[in-house]
């Protein structure tokens, strides 16, 4: 910044977010990106996931192949309340658990290699838990099907023991929890008020900030659900023969599409009266946090894995609420009464700086 407007206090005093800093940091920004998981941790995670995932894939293919002589073809693959009621050819019977695991594996690898999920404790626990639990689940599903089919003369005689499914679920869940516990790593460095960026407000000036966060995938999802709901609703209205089951599936689609659309695009405003978060393309409904109720704010990188997923996330009574549109830069607001508000938004550092300036002004008044 060679040319700074004389005496202009409009630039946050935060970490390197001036013009040249922004350009160097790139579009992802540099907002408080303290990586809790070092590069070494990340490499370890990726290596373990790659090797372990490949082993699981190999086991999912090699197991059935090794036992092929003792298995019927087709295989029994589905059991209902009256015993076995579904079968698939040998190859098709193999595929579901392999595909299930393959998708989860790729997702985990990509998120560890490129994402921020490993940077914080909650994300690390979730990632390791999902890796271990997911592989046990896939192996368990495949193994229990093989066990039921083993030495059966015909798929109709394959019996799935009643304990198999609960056992697989319990094993997957407990392995996941244990792995999450072991992989959680160091606690996150607590954010202190001293880390909060701020800026100078000048009398006679009105400073405001507006920003947004959008998730294109969620918008597409919402549009697809809306389309599916409208198309099938039209068919139903025109009198196409359809059972009640269709209604039961379709009717929830429209409200669900609306909800997903609302959290796929979030608009945030900061002004002298405080924070306003508006949902959806019309920025309505919205909620506000008045300046007096804000202790301080920071910009941090958070991932959906830490807050329990995308959308509006919170537990009543904890005072913690997250508006998670996408992983990455988030505005974190510590309320005066305790409790955090986390909102995904681009350029959150400036928003935090302005909020802190107004909060300090309100506290002084």
């Amino acid at each position, binding site marked *: *910044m060679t*040319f*700074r*407007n*004389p*005496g*202009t206090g*409009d*630039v946050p005093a935060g970490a390197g*977010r*001036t*013009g*040249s*800093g*922004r*350009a160097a940091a790139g*579009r992802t920004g540099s907002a408080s990106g303290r990586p809790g998981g070092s590069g070494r941790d990340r490499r370890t995670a990726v290596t373990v996931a790659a090797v372990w995932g490949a082993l699981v894939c190999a086991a999912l293919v090699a197991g059935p192949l090794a036992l092929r002589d003792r298995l019927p073809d087709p295989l029994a693959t589905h059991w209902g309340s009256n015993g076995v009621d579904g079968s698939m050819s040998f190859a098709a019977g193999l595929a579901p658990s392999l595909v299930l695991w393959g998708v989860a594996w790729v997702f985990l690898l990509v998120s560890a290699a490129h994402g921020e999920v490993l940077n914080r404790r909650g994300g690390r626990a979730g990632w390791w838990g999902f890796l271990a639990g997911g592989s046990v689940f896939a192996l368990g599903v495949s193994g229990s099907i093989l066990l039921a089919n083993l030495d059966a003369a015909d798929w109709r005689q394959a019996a799935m023991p009643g304990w198999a499914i609960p056992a697989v679920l319990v094993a997957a869940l407990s392995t996941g929890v244990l792995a999450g516990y072991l992989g959680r790593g160091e606690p996150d460095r607590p954010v202190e008020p001293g880390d909060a960026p701020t800026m100078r407000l000048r009398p*006679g*000036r*009105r*400073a*405001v*900030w*507006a*920003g*947004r966060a959008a998730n294109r995938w969620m918008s597409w999802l919402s549009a697809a659900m809306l389309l599916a709901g409208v198309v099938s609703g039209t068919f139903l209205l025109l009198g196409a023969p359809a059972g009640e089951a269709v209604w039961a599936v379709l009717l929830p689609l429209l409200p669900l599409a609306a909800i997903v659309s609302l959290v796929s695009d979030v*608009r945030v*405003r*900061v*002004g002298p009266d405080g924070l306003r978060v508006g949902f959806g393309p019309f*920025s309505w409904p919205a909620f506000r946090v008045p300046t007096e109720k804000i202790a301080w704010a920071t910009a941090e990188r958070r991932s959906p894995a830490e807050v329990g997923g995308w959308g509006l996330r919170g537990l009543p009574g904890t005072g913690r609420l997250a508006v998670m549109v996408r992983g990455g830069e988030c505005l974190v607001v510590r309320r005066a009464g305790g409790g955090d508000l986390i909102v995904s938004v681009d*350029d959150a550092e*400036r928003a935090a700086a*302005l909020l802190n300036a107004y909060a300090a002004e309100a506290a002084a008044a």
Partner: protein
Amino acid sequence: MLLTLDLNDPRPLHDQVAGSIRRAIAEGSYAPGDRLPPARDLAGALGINVNTVLRALRELRDEGLLEFRRGRGVSVLSRPDARAALQEAARELLAEADRYGYGPEEVIHIIRELS
């Protein structure tokens, strides 16, 4: 996008909004290709009419700083050149000086002293 309006600035409001956006782009808080918040949001945050903001955005488009695209909203096309950025800074300096009772000649004198 951080915008500041000077409540005592005698310039028309749309000029001030345009100046504020120009400065935000010049400072690099928005890089070429970045999308601006919708005009409705900016207007809501500033507490002014959306048409005022739209007028400011059109001015900046005519300057070649912004581009309007159907369905994609308004995005930054290029950074203002050094001269335009300096002009904006100088305009603010003069406004600030005016508040302290200094005229342009005195500001020029101060600048001479500094350089």
